[in-house]
């Protein structure tokens, strides 16, 4: 007998939904027949506001586009401006930027591990990982003055040099995080419960992954080796040794494995950066920020963030304000068209599980 279809509105107020968005589900029994994403609850009109602000005033805006991981946004805008203007960035600044980006990646993965396990009812994990993430936020606070939003990476370099003894403290934190990994493994990754829940759920087929515009860990979880850090190296990623982990399962489990391995890779990248970091300038001074005109031009720059590829399309018409800054976040595709596809056939209980594995983040869908 065919079961009667019912409509369920999951969100915007729902503890399992990652952020303020809504998924309208048509279900037959417990199985989802049709899913429709509704977004727009967080629309702040950033792209319009940036047209009203000067170039430097845009930096505090872009970092608010992605709340868990603001640094790739700043780095992207800075690099786009540098590309249009042809501004050189000192070598030391590039290394510092990579360090900040990778620390942000570690912090995001900490948050992700908490969210992923929290969405299946394993509440010990968030207590650990979000607590550990705070040590990285402490480092950020010392370096930039802000826990969550940093406004640290600017056009021409970074805002200020590393404080004295900062790298030692970074290394100490890395040691701590690395020692915590076996604990995480025992609780989450070797947990039979998690494996049973995650395997075979939320499948992105390998042959469809590129066509559907999947990026980041979900793409690598479908067995395609693509990483902006390798394919189009920015900053100093071409001088560093790291591998891009992939996994062939195409499901939530393989995405988790990819992220788990990337966690180790990030730790190793930061160690290399600290080892190789040259001395010297950290900032190529921009002219008076209130009258700073960027020459006409356009640039499209990409960054590999923890959740996937960030793309910034920046246009300047030669005035003191940006003509257009258009942001393409990884969740833009993951959270709308992809989610609608892969939710079909899943259970209601798996919705927040799958959303977490895709790294859906509504603020970057609507901005």
């Amino acid at each position, binding site marked *: 007998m065919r079961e009667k279809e019912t409509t369920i509105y999951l969100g915007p107020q729902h503890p399992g939904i990652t952020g303020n968005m809504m998924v309208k589900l048509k279900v037959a029994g417990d199985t989802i027949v049709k899913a429709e994403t509704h977004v727009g609850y967080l629309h702040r009109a950033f792209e*319009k506001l940036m047209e009203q602000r000067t170039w430097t005033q845009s930096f505090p805006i872009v970092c608010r586009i992605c709340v868990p991981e603001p640094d790739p946004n700043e780095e992207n805008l800075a690099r786009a401006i540098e590309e249009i203007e042809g501004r050189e960035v000192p070598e030391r600044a590039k290394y510092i930027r990579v360090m900040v980006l990778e620390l942000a990646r570690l912090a995001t993965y900490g948050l992700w591990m908490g969210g992923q396990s929290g969405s299946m009812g394993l509440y010990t994990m968030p207590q650990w990982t979000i607590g550990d993430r705070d040590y990285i936020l402490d480092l950020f606070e010392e370096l930039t003055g802000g826990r969550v939003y940093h406004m640290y990476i600017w056009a021409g370099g970074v805002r200020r040099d590393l404080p004295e003894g900062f790298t030692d403290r970074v290394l100490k934190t890395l040691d701590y995080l690395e020692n915590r990994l076996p604990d995480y493994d025992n609780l989450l990754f070797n947990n039979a419960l998690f494996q049973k829940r995650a395997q075979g759920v939320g499948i992105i087929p390998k042959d469809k992954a590129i066509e559907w515009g999947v990026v980041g860990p979900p793409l690598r979880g479908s067995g395609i080796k693509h990483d902006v850090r390798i394919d189009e190296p920015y900053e100093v990623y071409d001088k560093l040794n790291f591998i891009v982990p992939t996994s062939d399962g195409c499901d939530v489990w393989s995405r988790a494995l990819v992220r788990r391995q990337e966690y180790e890779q990030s730790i190793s990248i930061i160690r290399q950066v600290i080892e190789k970091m040259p001395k010297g300038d950290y900032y190529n001074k921009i002219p008076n920020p209130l009258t700073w005109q960027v020459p006409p031009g356009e640039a499209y720059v990409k960054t590999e963030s923890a959740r996937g590829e960030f793309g910034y399309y920046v246009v300047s018409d030669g005035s003191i304000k940006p003509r257009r800054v258009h942001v393409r976040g990884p969740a833009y595709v993951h959270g709308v068209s992809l989610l609608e596809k892969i939710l079909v056939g899943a259970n209601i209980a798996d919705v927040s599980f799958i959303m977490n594995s895709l790294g859906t983040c509504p603020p970057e869908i609507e901005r």
Partner: protein
Amino acid sequence: MHIQDCTENTCVDQIQKIFHTAEVEIQRKKRVKVKLRLDLVPLFLSYARDYLNFKHLAHISCVDWIEENEFELIFMLWSYEASLMIMVKTRVNREKPEFITLSHLWPQAETYEREIHEMYGINFKGNERLGEFILEDWEGVPPMRRDFDTIKYSKENFYQRPGREDAQDVRETISKHSGEEVPDFAKEFSIRRIEE
């Protein structure tokens, strides 16, 4: 053309061989810029996808060039094999902006089109999900158009809490309260702002 040999230069040659009217240039390493007539764009995109192997649609963007009475549509395609990005640019008339949907080529194009439709009012023929996407009950000019004044709108529609006026330029306030002198470059700016 063999996919592995696709570099910036061969890509440019290949495109120019087939699309004579296209203005092709290498913007920088890994970026090829193609300017095309509007009606050729769908043809070009499916050609790039199927023959040049640019399988990944990275971005669709729109810029309002109100001075020229045109919208510019920008499509970014990425090739995983060649690690190369094509930027396809075209202009749409601002009076009656219309284009056709690309959702049959890339399913995620639908989302971009819905956003551009809502923010700029460009009609993508064939896209069935155009309509309310991000905004709710929006009336009037699509908000991302240059002629929409967001400051005026927010002043008219929202209650603004008083007390922000003197905090517009923190430097002025500080100098007023503590007698500290405003630096020269800031003086220049505040004069200009008042004139605006």
